[in-house]
């Protein structure tokens, strides 16, 4: 607890590629309770970055800072700086509504809206003013194709989104996010509530999507982090009631083969958490 960690002195450990999102000295508070302290991390463009750590280590909280989803929870507060393409996303002139269009989000629980598959995917484009049927048709088709769901649903587009299986629902949600052409997709434990076959499909998908977007995934499944990500950040809350922190951030291969911090090694070898 008292030992110094020099990870903070070496924030951008993974060297190559520009940062899509850069976080510097981030503290996060739920009212009086500080949940995160001094997090500094750089998310590389067109990569998959995984946040791992035991439950309650603040990794989901941290993820929700990126699209200012925490703004919706009264009493939360952010200190420090997060930039998207160099722009401070907490600057007063930034509208979180615009930000969330650029940074989409997938949640743990698949959450299709209670409307048709088509309307689910067209929801975002319609919000942002696209009305022409032909244009919407194209967006719906290409988004479902990119989410690897088109083949399964192309004949049932008018059926309710909630009639699909859990895994299909999650891919529908991915298509729905892709339809607004975000630059970043945040995934908050996207596979923990769905069946293994669908997990496989979603993991395969992530690699394909990074040709155009940047993905950040929170997972408590270390094997999943190892399979899908190029970079991994390990978070830990060492003492209950104290803020969690970023212990180590590096290329996924280095984290899993030669972690620099003893606590990372203990976690990935399954000694706790």
């Amino acid at each position, binding site marked *: 607890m008292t030992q110094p960690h020099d990870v903070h002195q070496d924030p951008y450990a993974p060297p190559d590629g520009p940062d899509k999102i850069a976080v510097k000295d981030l503290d996060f508070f739920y009212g009086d309770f500080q949940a995160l302290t001094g997090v500094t991390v750089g998310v590389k463009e067109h990569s998959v970055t995984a946040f791992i750590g035991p439950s309650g280590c603040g990794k989901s909280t941290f993820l929700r800072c990126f*699209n200012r*989803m925490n703004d*919706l929870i009264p009493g939360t507060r952010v200190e420090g700086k997060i930039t998207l393409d160099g722009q401070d996303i907490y600057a007063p002139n930034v509208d979180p*509504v*615009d*930000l*969330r*269009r650029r940074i*989409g*989000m997938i*949640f743990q*629980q698949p*959450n*299709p*809206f*209670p*409307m048709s598959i088509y309307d689910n995917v067209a*929801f*975002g484009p319609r*919000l*942002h003013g696209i009305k022409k049927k032909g244009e919407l048709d194209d967006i719906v088709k290409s988004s479902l194709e990119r989410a690897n769901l088109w083949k399964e649903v192309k004949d049932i587009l008018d059926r*309710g989104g*909630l*009639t699909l299986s859990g895994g299909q629902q999650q891919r529908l*949600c991915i298509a*729905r*996010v892709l339809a*607004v052409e975000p630059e970043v997709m945040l995934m908050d434990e996207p596979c923990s509530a769905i069946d293994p076959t669908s997990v496989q499909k979603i993991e395969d998908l992530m690699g394909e999507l990074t040709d155009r977007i940047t993905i950040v995934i929170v997972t408590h499944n270390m094997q999943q982090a190892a399979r899908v990500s190029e970079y991994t950040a390990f978070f830990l809350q060492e003492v209950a009631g104290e803020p969690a922190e970023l212990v180590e951030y590096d290329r996924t291969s280095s984290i899993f083969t030669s972690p620099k911090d003893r606590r990372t090694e203990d976690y990935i070898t399954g000694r706790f958490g």
Partner: protein
Amino acid sequence: MNKRVTNAVALGLLWVAALTTVGILSAVILYVFVNGIGVISPGFIFTWPEGVNAEGGVWPTIVSTLYVTALAMVIVTPVAVLAAVYLAEYAVQGRLVSVIRFAADSLASVPSIVMGLFGLALFVEAMGIGFSMLSAALALSFLMLPIVMRTTEEAIRAVPKYIRWGSYGLGATKWQTVRKTVLPAAMPRIVTGIILATGRAVGETAVVIYTMGQAINLPVSPLDSGRPMTVHLYLLAMEGINLPAAYGTALLLMIMILLFNLSARFILRRSSKT
């Protein structure tokens, strides 16, 4: 052994209680049915009363009841739903909201005859609308308002937060989220609340007797007076002029309310499938 006896006794009591409830309900329905079914015919439903309004059919009273109920529904729905959206989504949850909620619950328990008296004083007299469909619909809407508002509020609160997050996550504003995802998701339960309140209004007597008048009249304009089925039924029975016709009217009224409630169930059932 002792435990078993207690168990058997408890079970027996539960059975008796359940049977009593079902028994009373069936007795009421059966009694009205047996006494009323003989009168009901197309002629009874679709013709006007005759003589001293004790013979003949009940057509104008059916129209008056449906007219006033529909009007009340049109008045109450936007107000109640918007108020509920405000309370559930926008208002800072605190003292003021609890006070409003308490006021709504109190309003729901005001005796309907008091509401009728109030309607008479305010709409019929002070505002000079007179005995009319409009006066009665306004007074009825006071009765329906808390029911629709509270069921709508519950329906909105029951929409999972994940659905809202999905919408916010796509760059929707709060109003877009409420209008395009929360309200559609809550709609079946909102509609159910409206229908149940409407069923209540159909069967209401005290409010309308003070505000609609008793004229046998086929209402066209909202300012026309009329005689709803409940008042007709009351007059048929209490002035002792035609009991069989009273039972016939009662049976028709019960069937109408049953249809309302069945349609509410149907809407809920169907929506839970999609």
